[in-house]
């Protein structure tokens, strides 16, 4: 019995700004269900940050689950493997998340035949036999990218640039976006595998310490992991305050390690390597089970959705199939968002394929989707108060409207993480993030042209 009225954990958080949008974790209690493969898989060749991968298959080729279909094409690029078995129908263009036509590999699915190298058994494999370099090699071969949404190729993150060494591995199990629960369910159902994945990442990054950051609203996951890490050396669990954007790399490092990553610097410059908990699970599957990244857990949710679910989806599945599995498109749907409501992107149709970075599909009711008319800025400074990077969003938004790119650069627009806190709080309904994104694109182009 606990006599003292103090909390055992004091939930940490980052230093400035942030907001607390309604959590809406409607699907948190629903276990992961595997979705059957689609009839036609459409796998875009852009599935990671950096250079698009080059297809290595052509029309008529037969593929199995796990066959390499596109090769990494440069330093920042990743391999892509088939998530289905069947015949390649064509390499053509499809409108993807970006809203533009992009090249993708179309595969007509036949059966569900997996590559012989992949170990499909459920048995937990704890023993780590490979050296750090070998682990990174396997991660690269299997096309593992950051599953938090940024899709940065993992093998590059684990190899710090010259002059920097990693000290701590930070596991991002925060899932601060409202509605999304895929990481939460993965933690509850695959905790042992995730911990082995964390050990693999620790070995690959050559660090002795790992910290798992979990937000307060996932008390069951915090309890489960706090219990399990007792059997591992060097791993601890830290509870974090429910504050958006707790899951942002720089803010997570600030909250857990009390270190601030400098402007324009990488997290490894303060000794931290951050990986999403879903990536840790993918690393376990890649190294211990020889399984490339071909499927991931996607939350499908929304206030009018009949069955908010967490589905294990093959890459290349059209989101129409997820919507049907969740009970069909609600009648009052106004927007379909891929990702979370804060940083996700509205999409133009339901044929958009699920890619490696897709963590959720949200069906927002029409009344909640429509923006109200933009009004003039009233200089209330709420945006400044909530900006977690300490910027002045009203000023950057005005610079975007008036095309003042050099002013925007001077006011540190490149530090913006596009979290959306400013747009969320603005009482004049100004679409600040839209203008700031424009500033970043233009100022970024100017900066690159200078070099």
């Amino acid at each position, binding site marked *: 019995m606990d006599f003292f009225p103090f909390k055992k954990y004091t939930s940490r958080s980052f230093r400035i700004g942030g907001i607390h949008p309604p959590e809406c974790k409607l699907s948190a209690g629903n276990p992961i269900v595997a979705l059957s493969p689609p009839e036609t898989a459409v796998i875009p060749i852009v599935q990671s940050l950096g250079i698009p991968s080059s297809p290595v298959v052509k029309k008529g080729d037969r593929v199995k689950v796990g066959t390499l279909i596109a090769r990494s094409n440069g330093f920042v690029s990743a391999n892509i493997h088939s998530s289905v078995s069947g015949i390649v129908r064509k390499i053509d263009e499809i409108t993807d998340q970006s809203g533009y036509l992009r090249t993708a590999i179309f595969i007509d699915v036949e059966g569900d035949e997996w590559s012989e190298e992949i170990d499909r058994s459920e048995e937990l494999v704890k023993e780590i036999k490979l050296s750090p370099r070998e682990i990174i090699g396997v991660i690269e071969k299997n096309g593992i990218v950051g599953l938090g949404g940024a899709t940065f190729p993992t093998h590059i993150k684990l190899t710090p640039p010259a002059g920097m060494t990693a000290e701590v591995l930070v596991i991002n199990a925060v899932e601060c976006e409202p509605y999304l629960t895929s990481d939460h369910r993965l933690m509850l159902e695959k905790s042992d595998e995730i911990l082995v994945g964390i050990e693999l990442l620790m070995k690959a990054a050559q660090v002795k310490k790992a910290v798992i950051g979990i937000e307060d609203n996932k008390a069951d996951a915090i309890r489960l992991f706090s219990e399990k890490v007792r059997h591992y050396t060097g791993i601890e669990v830290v509870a974090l305050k429910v504050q958006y954007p707790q899951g942002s790399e720089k803010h997570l490092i600030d909250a857990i390690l009390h270190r601030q990553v400098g402007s324009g610097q990488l997290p490894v410059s303060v000794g931290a390597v951050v990986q999403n908990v879903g990536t840790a699970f993918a690393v376990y599957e890649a190294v211990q089970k020889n399984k490339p990244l071909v499927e991931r857990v996607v939350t499908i949710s929304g206030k009018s959705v009949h069955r908010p679910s967490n589905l294990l989806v093959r890459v290349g599945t059209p989101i129409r199939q997820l919507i049907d599995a969740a009970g069909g498109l609600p009648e009052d749907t106004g927007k379909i968002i891929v990702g979370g409501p804060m940083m996700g*992107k509205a999409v133009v149709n339901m044929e958009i394929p699920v890619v490696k970075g897709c963590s959720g599909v949200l069906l927002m009711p029409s009344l909640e989707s429509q923006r109200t008319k933009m009004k003039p800025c009233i200089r209330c400074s709420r945006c400044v108060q909530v900006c977690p990077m300490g910027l002045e969003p009203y000023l950057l938004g005005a610079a975007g409207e008036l095309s003042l790119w050099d002013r925007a650069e001077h006011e540190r627009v490149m530090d913006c993480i596009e979290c959306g806190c400013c747009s969320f709080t603005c009482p004049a309904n100004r679409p600040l993030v*839209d203008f700031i994104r424009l500033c970043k694109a233009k100022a970024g182009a100017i900066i690159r042209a200078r070099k």
Partner: protein
Amino acid sequence: MNIILLSTLLLAAIGGISAVILNVVARRFQVDEDDRVRLIEEILPAANCGGCGYPGCRGFAEACVKASTLAGLRCPVGGDELMAKVGAMLGVAAPTSVQMIAVVRCNGTCDHRPKINRYDGAQSCAVESMLYGGDTGCSYGCLSHGDCVKACRFDAIYINRETLLPEVIEDKCTACGACVKACPKTIIEMRKKGPGSRRIFVNCVNKDKGAVSRKACSVSCIACGKCQQACNYNAITLSDNLAYIDYNMCSLCRACVEVCPTSAIAELNFPAKKRQESVD
């Protein structure tokens, strides 16, 4: 009385000393400048539009005085008339060049190019273009928010409320190039104004394959090549699924306009063609 005299003399002394200091400083730090710069600047339009490529009218005036010839220096707002005056002032020959005009190369009205979703973001073409491919099936077409209208300093372009496309007012356009730079889809191009203001151009910038662009817009260019075959002056090239008419080679014969199956080639300011009666 004494104090009044003293105050007056003191103030006069301060005034006198200040005058001397100012005079000395003004002479010491005087910027020597060719007087012609000021004279030229006075006859320039003072719009500071940057169409000449120099920072403002003053910048252009300085460039004119510094250069030995006026080759490559032209104020598009003032045109040949103005450059003749500048030439006269500097005692050099004034260049004449062809009058250009802004041309909008998209005909994707609501009738031709149906909308397939609704855009609900910041009302700026640059922002929408960055976010996604637009609310129609053609991701190259005009987005109708009027970034070009905002950029124009001469009120020479406006968005037609019915077609939702920009239209250039011929008399006011000075070919300064601001709208060309403002359009994120590079729909507006600077082309020759043409004799009697007549010009012919491909009214489309869609680079998707013919089948895709035709499905999105009924008047898109499908790069079938019929125009290239019809042209006797080698003015038409095809690349990236799009036809392009070189305005320097075009003879304004209109052969291409007639053969285009999607009516993607536009002719401006031509008299209506007389119908040829067919003889049975």
